[in-house]
């Protein structure tokens, strides 16, 4: 019995963490990510992978509901913890693991896990909550009706001239590598976005303006988050290390971080494979066929310039409507890259009016 207990505490000593950052908690997130990197804990890429759900700050009502949806998808043993500003993150994480072990140890089966279907009706959906409404307009083909609470897919025109099924799926607001609070309501044919609609949740309640952040550090943070989505974890790890080093008080660590930042940006800018992989992403219909426009690559260069302290003209940030329009017709992975390259964040989006794309 004790052997099993010891095995359990050994196995769960490095849980996978799913971070949920409420608006205005960027600094706190950086501290927490630095601590996770120091401990060698890994980030979960989906709720099914997570053991520990860490919620930073005070989520608004809609975000809190989305967290509940995500929580319903986390397999046991699991633990949900809240970290507020001004808390020692190391102590908080230690306590989180203890609580996780305590839950895993108590043999009582977890009760009250709501069935997946119970979240279907909610509009702000969840990680993969299939959107309920909207399935009944348009021509009523032979397949209609509902199965297991899900509406059957309708067909729609697609780019290959085949009338294929359209699936309504909402992505976000809580999704690793995705700006927390942003919801993408998508109409998908296979993995191609036939239609897209973007919005922020809790839009009216975001009032607090987070502490202003160092431009270089946030550039490195954007870079790291983009690289995670682009599937380059080693470079993302280096970018995070550089960001955390720059926040240090010690001079020696800061200069080392500066070197690391130059190294990682050099690697990113010099990577022909990355350029090959993301070239053309985010190009609008207008400039298709010309090789000049590579918006995602351009913004990536911008973050890299900022990260090493070079001046760089801020490339225009499109409004949510324009962004949603540019996502239409793209493959879901490309859409994720485009969104990740923008470094969206609810606080700045609210503070700067929607017409930021000057």
């Amino acid at each position: 019995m004790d052997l099993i207990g010891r095995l359990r505490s050994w196995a769960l000593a490095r849980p996978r963490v799913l971070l949920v950052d409420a608006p205005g908690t960027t600094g706190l997130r950086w501290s927490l990510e630095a601590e996770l990197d120091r401990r060698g804990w890994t980030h979960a890429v989906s709720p099914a992978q997570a053991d520990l759900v860490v919620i930073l700050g005070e989520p608004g009502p809609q975000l809190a509901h989305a967290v509940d949806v995500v929580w319903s998808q986390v397999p046991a043993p699991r633990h949900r913890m809240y970290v507020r500003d001004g808390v020692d993150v190391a102590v908080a994480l230690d306590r989180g693991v203890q609580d996780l072990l305590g839950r895993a140890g108590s043999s009582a089966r977890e009760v009250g896990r709501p069935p997946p279907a119970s979240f279907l009706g909610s509009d702000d959906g969840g990680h993969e909550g299939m959107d309920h409404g909207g399935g009944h307009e348009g021509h009523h083909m032979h397949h209609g009706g509902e199965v297991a609470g899900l509406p059957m897919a309708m067909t729609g025109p697609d780019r290959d001239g085949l009338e294929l099924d359209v699936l309504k799926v909402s992505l976000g607001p809580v999704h690793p590598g995705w700006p927390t609070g942003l919801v993408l309501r998508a109409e998908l044919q296979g993995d191609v976005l036939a239609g897209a609609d973007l919005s922020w949740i809790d839009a009216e309640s975001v009032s607090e303006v987070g502490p202003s952040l160092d431009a270089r550090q946030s550039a490195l943070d954007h870079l790291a988050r983009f690289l995670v989505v682009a599937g380059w974890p080693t470079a993302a790890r280096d970018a995070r290390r550089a960001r955390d080093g720059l926040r240090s008080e010690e001079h020696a660590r800061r200069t080392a971080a500066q070197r690391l930042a130059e190294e990682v940006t050099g690697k990113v800018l010099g990577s022909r494979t990355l350029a090959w992989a993301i070239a053309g992403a985010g190009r609008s219909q207008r400039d298709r066929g010309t090789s000049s426009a590579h918006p995602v690559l351009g913004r990536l260069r911008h973050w890299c310039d900022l990260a090493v302290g070079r001046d760089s003209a801020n490339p225009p940030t499109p409004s949510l409507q324009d962004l949603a329009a540019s996502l239409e017709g793209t493959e879901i992975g490309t859409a994720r890259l485009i969104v990740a390259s923008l470094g969206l964040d609810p606080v700045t989006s609210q503070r700067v009016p929607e017409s930021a794309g000057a």
Partner: protein
Amino acid sequence: MRETATATLPEAWGVLPAVLAVALVGVGLGLVVASVDRAVLAGRTRGAVLEPLREGARLLLEQRRTTLAPDRLLWRLGCVAVPVLALLSLAVVPVGGRTLWSTSADLVWFNAMEALLWAAIWLVGWGPNAFHALAGGYRFLAQGLAYELPLMFALVTVGVAAGSLRTTDVLAAQDGLWFVVTMPVAFAVFVASAAAFAFWGPFAAPTSADIAGGVTSELSGVDRLLVEAGRGVFLGATAAMAAALFLGGDSGPWLPGPLWQLLKTLAVVTALVWVGRRLPVLRPDRTVEVGWMVLVPLTLVQALVVAVLVLSGFYA
């Protein structure tokens, strides 16, 4: 049956010990892949061996995920099939100069196991009735289809040079010269296609972060352990196969044969992991076109070159 130079493993050791030994080798190879990967990913070697074991234990303790209206039968079938097929593909890989099973079409057997693995991964993506998993499954179908033919041609090239599809014959044919010297393209394509079939490194788009882990996004507990372990075992098996088919297997001076084979396999695994982790994930729409438009003709030319060499008596 033709007199083969070496007996199969079951003939030498008995059936049960041979099967157990090959399964152990497979698990060991998978562990090696996971450890090297961990070391490269974390940037430090400390705890690299222990971490995959810890991860395995953690997954064993974890609950299995349920989703809304899943196709549970096919989902579980896919999850179980992944490690089983990876181990089956190891059956024709020479271990210490002998294979668990020696047929007259070993190379095709290896390829068939890869194809079945490909279908099994699609099942893993199809099963949970979730968007991200299915998108990963689609990506893997396209990728596997594009890299199946180059892989097949690479294997055919080896078969042409050895004059046999039996792996032990291929080993014997490399007595004088390793095949990698005359068929570098086939070697590179074999390794790259193997990475594509194990959806690994730059070919990890079916499980990449931009679709929340793709086919693995809804896996937890034992299911995830099976799939991840199967992927590691398969990658290790491919590295061992690459060492046997192109790098002369267990031939080498001074050291005993099995040690040479181990060293070569470890070298291939390390190179594969190290290079793979230094590249970002490539989008499938890019890699697929390269597979069809570049690798297929390239491997055909390679096969032609080798065939001409065979006719000129180069390998005799």
